[in-house]
């Protein structure tokens, strides 16, 4: 999985900024990125934000269609995560939480 490793505080701030970007345009909040807690491996305690190229080019809305990269807030958010080159390939197993009660 391609994405960013960041602190819980930063991932919360990024999620809120994405939420605000939609709300400020009088749109419902229909799309978010969130930080997933990392349960094992060298990044335990940090958050993982999944952000491969397909996510960053998701057709979001509008005519013509806009992707996340078309929003002016995009560059600042990516910079707050260290830039696109800061993304890593994280093992899926590291974010699998213990089996839920069901």
């Amino acid at each position, binding site marked *: 999985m391609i994405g960013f490793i960041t602190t819980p505080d930063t991932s919360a701030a990024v999620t809120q900024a994405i939420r605000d970007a939609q709300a400020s345009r*009088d749109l419902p909040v*229909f799309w978010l*990125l969130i930080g997933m807690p990392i349960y094992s491996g060298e990044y335990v305690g940090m958050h993982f934000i999944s952000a491969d190229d397909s996510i960053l080019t998701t057709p979001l809305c509008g005519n013509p269609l806009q992707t996340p990269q078309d929003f002016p807030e995009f560059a600042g958010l990516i910079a707050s995560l260290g830039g696109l080159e800061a993304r890593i390939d994280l093992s*899926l197993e590291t974010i*699998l939480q*213990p089996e*839920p009660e069901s």
Partner: protein
Amino acid sequence: MKYVLGNMLNGAGIQGLDPDAKGYINAVVAAGGTVSGAQRTAINTFIKGEKAASRWILQKRIYLPIWGVAAANAIDIVSLTSGTFVGNVTHNAGSVSTTAPTGHFLANATPASLGVNQADVSIWVLVASGIHEFSGCGGTSNSRLLLGRVSALNTAAIPSTTSIVPGSVDTQGINMASRIGSDLSLFQRKTSGWITPLTSTQANTTALPLFNPSFLGNFNANGVVTTARTSVGEYGSYGYGLGMTSVQAEAFSLALKSLFETATGIILP
């Protein structure tokens, strides 16, 4: 809502268009979706049929994420409100899919807020391909609205002290769990037919959890969407509402199958 007001012309091209169909079509178009004439007819036929059969009042949330655009895919047919896609979700032509536990869809309405309770509830998913793991939400012990697959078994718990097990691992098609009173059933619609894998009496009266149900292979456990499982499925529709009898569920599944297949050209497994 902006989507509703954004385009009042697109849904006006069909004689006798149901107002709710028109509202949904307009909302999808305003959100960036493209709705063909055949798709408009299919949506109109579906909604009119549900109303004629008195099932429309049972439906609280129906999502049809076939438009290839996140905003359009997030719109609920019934209320025109929007749910939220989170994380790694791919918006295909005809479905949405995830390949990792980081992606899911949240319906932004708790069961209680829609008048759905533990004795009058249904939840369903249309799986075009792949494997469905979980949908729904869970709270404290026995407070669960779940439709899914646990280990090698299917499970529905609405709520129950123990999971019910129909014994099938094939989740492709339309899968539904419904409870009316103490009667809980699990239904499955495939192109090959209609089955009721399990019926059970559920004496448990624990209230449903006060969380928003999650779809696309994960469920919302105590306010946090679980990443315990990886789901690889393509979903053409999902939703929840009041309970359906076996007769109602069978007819609804046929109508939904027709809507999905007509609108996408994809034949249900």
